[in-house]
C-alpha cells in the first residue's frame, strides 16, 4: 500500500515538474532600460559662525569666516553675498555700532580673490560653478577695516544667496 502511494506520488510529481521544466527557456541576450527622472535640486548649508569679529579695539583690519556647502544640479550656479539689513542708503553694507556707522564697508571674498564691499549696488559674486556639485564646501571670508576705536555691540545680517544663472 505504502509502495503504491510512493509510486503514485512520484508520478504526480513528475507530471507537475514536466511543464515547469519545459517552461524554462534558455537564456538569451538582451537589454533592459534602466532610467528615471531626477528632479532638479538646490541646497545651501551654512555653518553659523560661533562668534563674530573681535571687539574693534584697535585700528586694523579684522577678519572672520564661515563655511557654505552647496549642492546643485544646474549647470551654472552662483553664490553671492548681500547686506540683509539694508537694501539701499548709507547703511548698506556697513556695520553700525549703536547709532554710529563704521565708515568702511564690510567686505567679503572666497579664496584668493580680492575683497569686495557689500555697499555696492551689485551683490559681490563669491563663487560660480559651471557644473553640478555635491556638498561643495566654500569658505566665505569677511573683513572689516577699522580706522578708529569703536566699542559697543553690533549685529549684522548677511544674505547668502545661491542662485541659478540660466532663466
Amino acid at each position, binding site marked *: 500500500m505504502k509502495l503504491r502511494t510512493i509510486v503514485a506520488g512520484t508520478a504526480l510529481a513528475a507530471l507537475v515538474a514536466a511543464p515547469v521544466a519545459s517552461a524554462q527557456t534558455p537564456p538569451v541576450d538582451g537589454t533592459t532600460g534602466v532610467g528615471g527622472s531626477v528632479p*532638479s535640486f538646490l541646497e*545651501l548649508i551654512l*555653518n553659523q559662525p560661533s562668534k563674530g569679529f573681535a571687539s574693534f579695539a584697535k585700528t586694523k583690519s579684522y577678519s572672520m569666516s*564661515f563655511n557654505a556647502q552647496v549642492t546643485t544640479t544646474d549647470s551654472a550656479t*552662483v553664490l553671492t553675498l548681500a547686506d540683509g539689513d539694508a537694501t539701499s542708503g548709507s547703511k548698506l553694507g556697513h556695520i553700525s555700532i549703536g547709532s554710529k556707522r563704521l565708515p568702511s564697508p564690510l567686505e567679503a571674498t572666497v579664496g584668493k580673490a580680492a575683497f569686495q564691499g557689500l555697499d555696492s549696488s551689485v551683490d559681490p559674486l563669491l563663487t560660480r560653478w559651471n557644473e553640478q556639485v555635491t556638498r561643495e564646501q566654500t569658505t566665505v571670508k569677511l573683513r572689516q577695516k577699522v580706522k578708529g576705536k569703536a566699542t559697543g555691540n553690533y549685529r549684522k545680517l548677511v544674505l547668502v544667496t545661491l542662485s541659478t544663472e540660466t*532663466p
Partner: protein
Amino acid sequence: MTRVRSRLVAGALGLAVVGTATGGVIAQADDSAPRAKAAQQGGVEITPAMVERTAKRGNVGSFTVKNTTKNTLRVTVTIRPWTQNRSTGAVQANLKASLSPYVRASPQVFDLRPGSRSISLNMRRTTAAGSLYGGIQVFAKLKRPKKTNGINPQYNVIGRLRLNPARKRPNLRVGNTDVVGRGNARSLILAVRNTGNTLDPVGGTVKITGPTARNANIPQVSVVPGQVVYLKGGALRGMKSGSYTATWSVTQGAKRYTARRTFRL
C-alpha cells in the same frame, strides 16, 4: 535527541537575535553619523529647483522646501523677475521687484521646523505675452536667533519658474553691431531684444566681408522676454583695418532674421 535539537534551535535563535541586534546597532551607527553632521550644520534645500508648466490661471505646480537645520526657520517665498546680463546672458533675480500680482506661492510666509513642506504656486493673472519667467526666491532665517551679537548669515535660495505660453510667438528686435574689447581681445557683438514670449535659444551665423573675410557661428543663448542680450559674432583677431560688413543670420526656433550691419576696425 529532542533536547539536543532544542538546544541547537535555541543557540541558532540566540545567534540570530544577537545578529539582529548587532545589525541594528551597526545600522544605527551608520545612519546616525550623517544625521548628526546635518544637524550640526544644516541648511535649506528646494526640489525641484525648476518648476516648468504651461501658463494658465490656477495651480501651476509645486515644489518642496526642506529645513535640515535643527532650528525652526521663518521662510518667505516670493517670485522675482529676472534681470539678464547683456554680455554673458546670465540671469539674476531682481530682489527689488516682485511678480506676486501674477504668481503667488501658497503658503507665502511660514515657519518651518526641521523637515520639509510642499509649496504650491498659483497663477492669479495671466500676462499679456502669455508666458512668465522668473526666479523662485526662498528666503529663510532663524525664527529665534541667538541673542548674540555679530554676523548672522541667512539663507536665500533661488530656483526657476518657467510658465511657457500656450502658443509660442517668437520675435526678436535686432539692434546694432559693435566692436568690444581691445587689441587681440576684440570681438563683434549684435544687440537683440526678445520681444516674443518664449525662452527658445537664439543662435545663428555671421558672415563678415571686407579687407579680411570671416564666418562664425553665434553661440546659442536663451534671452528672457523683454531683455537685451549681445550675441557674440566671434573674435576679430588678425583682421586688417578697414570698413567691414557683417551679415547676421539670427534664428530663434524656426524663425530667421537677417541683418546687415557695417563696422570699422
